[in-house]
C-alpha cells in the first residue's frame, strides 16, 4: 500500500474540514431542491448514494487506514439487510430491536471471519475475505423460506417504538444522512484516537508495531469488527430504502464496487469515500441515461482514473488547490 505513505502524516488532532461541512450541508438541502423537481426519484437516488457511502466509509477505514484490502464487504451490507428482512418476516419491524440486531449479527460475523482472515496477508487477505463474502452470498441464496435467490420484500419499513419514523421518503432521507454523519464522525474519532494510531501504524509496519509491544492482530480485529458493523448499518438502511432484500446485495461485484468508490474518491481520506460513492453512483446513473452501452465508457474511465488521477477526486482537488494557491 504505497498510495498513502508516511511522508504525508495525518494531523494529530481532529480539525473539522470546511469542505466536509459544506458537503453535509449540501446533502441536508437536497430535499428542499428536490421538492421542485422529480422528488421521489432524486430523494431515492441520493438516499442510495448515502447508504453506499456508509459502506464505502467502512471499506476506506479498513483499506486506507488499516491497509486491509477487503474484497468481501458487501457481505456485511447483505447481512444487515437480511437481518431486517428476516425479522420482518417474523413480524418484528421495530428498529429498537432490528437495528441493534443488525449491528450485532454483522459485528459477530466480522469477529469470527476476522479471526481467520487476519492470519493472512496482502493478496491472501483479499482472497479470503472474498471467500467469506461468497459463502454469505450462497447462504443467502439458499434461504428458501426468505425468498432464496429471488430475494424477499419487506412487509414494511422499520418503526421506532411503534412510530412510523421512516414514514415518508424525506424522513428516511434525513435518517440516512444522520447515520452517514454519525458514521463519518465515528471513523474520524477512531482514526485519530490512540487505537487509530496503532491501527494505522500496523499498516505502515506491522513488525515494528509488534516489536513496540502491541498485539497487532487484536487491534486489526477490532478495526475489522467496526467496519463490519458499519457495513451492517448500511445494509439496515438499504433494506429500508428499497424495501427489498436479495442475495445480489452480497455478490463479489458489489464488494468490488465499494473498493472502486473508495479509490475513486481518494483512499485514506474518509470524506473521499463519500465523494467517491456519490461520483460512482451518479456517473453510472448519468451514463446509463445517455446510452445503453454506458459500460463502454465507464470501463476505460476506471482505467484512466487509476493511471492518471492518483489519490482520486479528493487528491485531484487538493493538487488543483495547491497549484492555485502557489501562483
Amino acid at each position, binding site marked *: *500500500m504505497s*498510495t498513502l505513505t508516511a511522508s504525508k502524516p495525518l494531523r494529530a488532532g481532529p480539525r473539522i474540514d470546511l469542505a466536509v461541512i459544506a458537503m453535509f450541508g449540501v446533502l441536508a438541502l437536497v430535499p428542499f431542491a428536490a421538492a421542485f423537481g422529480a422528488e421521489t426519484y432524486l430523494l431515492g437516488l441520493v438516499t442510495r448514494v448515502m447508504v453506499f457511502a456508509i459502506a464505502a466509509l467502512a471499506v476506506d477505514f479498513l483499506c486506507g487506514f488499516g491497509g486491509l484490502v477487503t474484497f468481501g464487504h458487501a457481505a456485511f451490507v447483505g447481512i444487515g439487510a437480511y437481518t431486517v428482512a428476516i425479522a420482518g418476516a417474523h413480524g418484528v419491524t421495530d428498529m429498537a430491536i432490528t437495528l441493534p440486531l443488525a449491528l450485532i449479527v454483522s459485528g459477530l460475523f466480522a469477529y469470527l471471519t476476522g479471526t481467520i482472515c487476519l492470519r*493472512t496477508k496482502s493478496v491472501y487477505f*483479499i482472497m479470503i475475505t472474498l471467500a467469506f463474502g*461468497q459463502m454469505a452470498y*450462497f447462504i443467502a441464496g439458499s434461504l428458501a423460506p426468505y425468498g432464496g435467490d429471488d430475494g424477499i420484500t419487506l412487509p414494511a419499513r422499520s418503526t421506532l417504538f411503534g412510530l412510523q419514523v421512516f414514514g415518508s421518503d424525506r424522513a428516511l432521507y434525513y435518517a440516512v444522512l444522520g447515520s452517514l454523519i454519525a458514521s463519518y464522525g465515528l471513523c474520524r474519532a477512531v482514526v485519530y484516537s490512540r487505537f487509530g494510531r496503532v491501527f494505522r501504524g500496523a499498516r505502515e509496519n506491522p513488525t515494528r508495531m509488534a516489536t513496540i509491544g502491541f498485539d497487532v492482530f487484536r487491534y486489526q480485529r477490532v478495526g475489522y469488527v467496526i467496519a463490519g458493523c458499519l457495513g451492517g448499518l448500511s445494509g439496515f438502511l438499504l433494506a429500508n430504502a428499497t424495501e427489498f432484500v436479495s442475495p445480489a446485495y452480497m455478490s463479489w461485484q458489489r464488494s468490488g464496487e465499494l473498493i*472502486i468508490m473508495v479509490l475513486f474518491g481518494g483512499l485514506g481520506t474518509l470524506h473521499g469515500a463519500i465523494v467517491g460513492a456519490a461520483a460512482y453512483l451518479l456517473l453510472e446513473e448519468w451514463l446509463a441515461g445517455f446510452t445503453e452501452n454506458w*459500460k463502454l465508457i*465507464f470501463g476505460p*474511465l476506471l482505467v484512466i482514473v487509476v493511471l492518471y488521477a492518483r489519490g482520486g477526486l479528493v487528491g485531484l482537488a487538493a493538487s488543483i488547490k495547491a497549484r492555485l494557491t502557489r501562483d
Partner: protein
Amino acid sequence: MSFTLFIVQILNGLQFGVLLFLIAAGLTLVFGVMDFINLAHGVQYMLGAYLAVMFYTLTGSFVLALILALVAALAFGLLLEFTVFRQLYERDHLEQVIATFGIIIFLNQGVKVVWGAAPLSLPIPEALSGVVALMPGLVYPVWRLVIIASGLVVALLLYILVSRTRVGMLVRAGATHARIVSALGVDIRRLFMIVFGFGTMLAAFAGIMIAPILSVEPGMGDSVLILAFVVIVIGGIGSMRGAFIAALLVGLVDTLGRSFMIDILRLVMPPSPARTVGPAIASMLIYVLMALVLYFRPAGLFPARGKS
C-alpha cells in the same frame, strides 16, 4: 448413488479441474513473475471462445478456428499489455484490481455490442462428437476426454518448459528474485511480455476447448476468474505445481459436491431441508476449502520458495 454415476462425476470433476488449471496457470505465472493481479484474465478466456466461434463461422473448420483464435487472442493480449498493463506493474495491488476491473466491464459490454447478448455455440468437431464406452454401462462423451487429455498434455509441457528450459529458469528466478534477474542483464520487460502472452493464450485455449460444451456468452469469464483465483491461492501464488494440484482438487470437490451433497445430507437430516440446504453447501464447498487451507497454511499449499 451408483458406482458408474460416481465414475462419471469423477471424470467431470477432472475435466473441470483441467479447465481451471489452464486458466489458473497463466494467472499464477503472471502473478508470480510480475506481481500483477490481472482480473482481466477471465475475459481473455471469454474472448478465446468468441473468437473461435467467429473463425469457425468464417472457415468452417474447428482446427483452423482454434489456431486463428489462439493467434488473435495472443495479439489482443499483447495489445492490452502494451497499452495498459505495462503501466500497472509498478502500482500496488489495489490499483491493478481496479484498472483490470475496468477492462472487464469494457470487454463484457464490448462483446455484447460486437456479437450480441444472446448465447452462441460452437459445434464439437465431427470426429470427436460421439460417446465412448469406458466400461460396461459407462459411456462418456469423447470431447470431454479430449479436454482432459489436452489439459494434461499442456500441464506436462508446462512442467518441462518451466523446469527444463532457459526461459523456464528465468521465469522461476523472476518469480522469486525479479530485481536480481534484471540486474544480471536479462531483459525483464521482454520476459514479462512472453509470460503474459503465454498466459493469455492458455486462457484463450481453455475458452476455445470448453466452448462446444458451454454456451458462449458475455460475462462467462467472471465466475471462472474467481474460481481460478481460488485455485492459485490454494495452490500458493506463483507455484505451477500448486496450481495443478489445487485445480484438480477444486474441480473434483465442486463437481462431486454438487452431485452428491443432497444425498450425503439425507443421511443426517430429512429429505426436504436436505434439498434446500444441499445446493447452498455445495456452492460454498470450495470457499470453505480455501478458508481452511489458508487458515492452516496462510501462503497456500505450495508457497513459492524465496518469498515469504
